[in-house]
């Protein structure tokens, strides 16, 4: 009899600790994930950023616009801003947006949370993200501990994390401790525009083992592409946009309008200033143009 894999399995110390974390936390799921992929014409975004940066105290980048656009779209579609605890759906009290910060010192990435992102100006979002970037740079990951301590950490990651996740995923808890903000965000945002990467055609962000950030928004780098406008082929800057969400909190009929609103805000960021005045109860994808 022939076994197709080598035995024994890889030792925990031979794999990164975040892989051990996922191995301890994940089982093959019945997957309620929905993904909506689209393109965004961001030619107008460039012009908007030029105007904004003439007046802003902090340098504003497309990533900052993305965070603010997501917050504005959630304000119009609050059904996105929910999480699952046990088998019940809960609404978040405020619009917090989690964003992945990539830098050379944290190859696994790091996440930060911008609280009440819908109430911040674009300049405030930029200033906060630069502050968090700086904090990340000033506090690089600690070097590996002794082999013995690394083994203990991996043992804990594999065996204790499932217990921790059972609590945070089944019992409604107050936001406490250093990870409190991470449990208070309904949406996670990636801006993957690093140079020299292959063009992004499809991207599904992984789900977090804790049942928060059930929706993910990922935007890739803009590229010049042919587009048809008024029956003419013109060159526009087009960026890929992917939204992953969860059928336990919304339907595709709700995800579609959310993506449409987000796309519109990215195409015409000035609309966000008007949309911020719309009350959530009065919101809908068709309301954006009225707010402009």
């Amino acid at each position, binding site marked *: 009899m022939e076994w197709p894999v080598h035995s024994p399995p890889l030792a925990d110390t031979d794999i990164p600790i975040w892989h051990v974390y996922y191995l301890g936390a994940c089982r093959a799921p019945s997957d309620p994930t929905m993904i909506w992929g689209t393109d965004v014409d961001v030619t107008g975004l460039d012009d908007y950023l030029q105007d904004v940066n003439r007046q*802003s105290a*902090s*340098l*504003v980048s*497309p*990533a900052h616009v993305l965070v603010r656009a997501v917050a504005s779209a959630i304000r119009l579609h609050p059904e996105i801003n929910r999480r699952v605890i046990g088998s019940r759906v809960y609404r978040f009290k405020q619009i917090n947006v989690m964003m992945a910060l990539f830098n050379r010192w944290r190859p696994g990435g790091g996440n930060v949370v911008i609280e009440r992102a819908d109430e911040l100006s674009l300049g405030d979002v930029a200033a906060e993200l630069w502050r968090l970037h700086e904090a990340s740079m000033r506090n690089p990951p600690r070097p590996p501990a002794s082999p013995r301590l690394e083994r203990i950490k991996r043992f804990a990651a594999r065996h204790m994390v499932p217990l921790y996740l059972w609590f945070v995923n089944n019992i409604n808890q107050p936001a406490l401790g250093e990870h409190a903000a991470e449990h208070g965000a309904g949406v996670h945002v990636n801006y993957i*525009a690093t*140079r020299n990467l292959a063009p992004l055609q499809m991207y599904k962000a992984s789900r977090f083992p804790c049942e928060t950030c059930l929706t993910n928004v990922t935007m890739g780098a803009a590229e010049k592409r042919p587009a048809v406008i008024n029956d003419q082929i013109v060159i526009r800057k087009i960026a890929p946009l992917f939204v992953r969400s969860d059928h336990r909190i919304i339907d595709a009929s709700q995800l579609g309008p959310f993506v449409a609103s987000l796309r519109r805000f990215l195409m015409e960021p000035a609309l966000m200033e008007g949309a911020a005045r719309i009350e959530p109860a009065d919101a809908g994808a068709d309301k954006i143009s009225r707010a402009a």
Partner: protein
Amino acid sequence: MGRVLQIQQDLLHFISSQIARSEVIGAETDLVTSGILDSMLIVDLIAHIESTYPVRIDSTDITPAAFQNVARLATMISERLSHHTQAA
């Protein structure tokens, strides 16, 4: 003036090594409006500056004016180096 030019060359070399070969930049190229600077390149650029020169770039220094072009960045670094030298 010689120090500013030297810093300019260093920054141009670093940025050029990070971007596509087809993009040609000079000391006066607008890094903000041209879209050359993205968030990650800014963070890498700051790390390069701080590891090369005894200066510190805080988050409040990341302004459109300071990062508009290599010439302005080099001037800012040079001024901080002068303060550093005077304080030493």
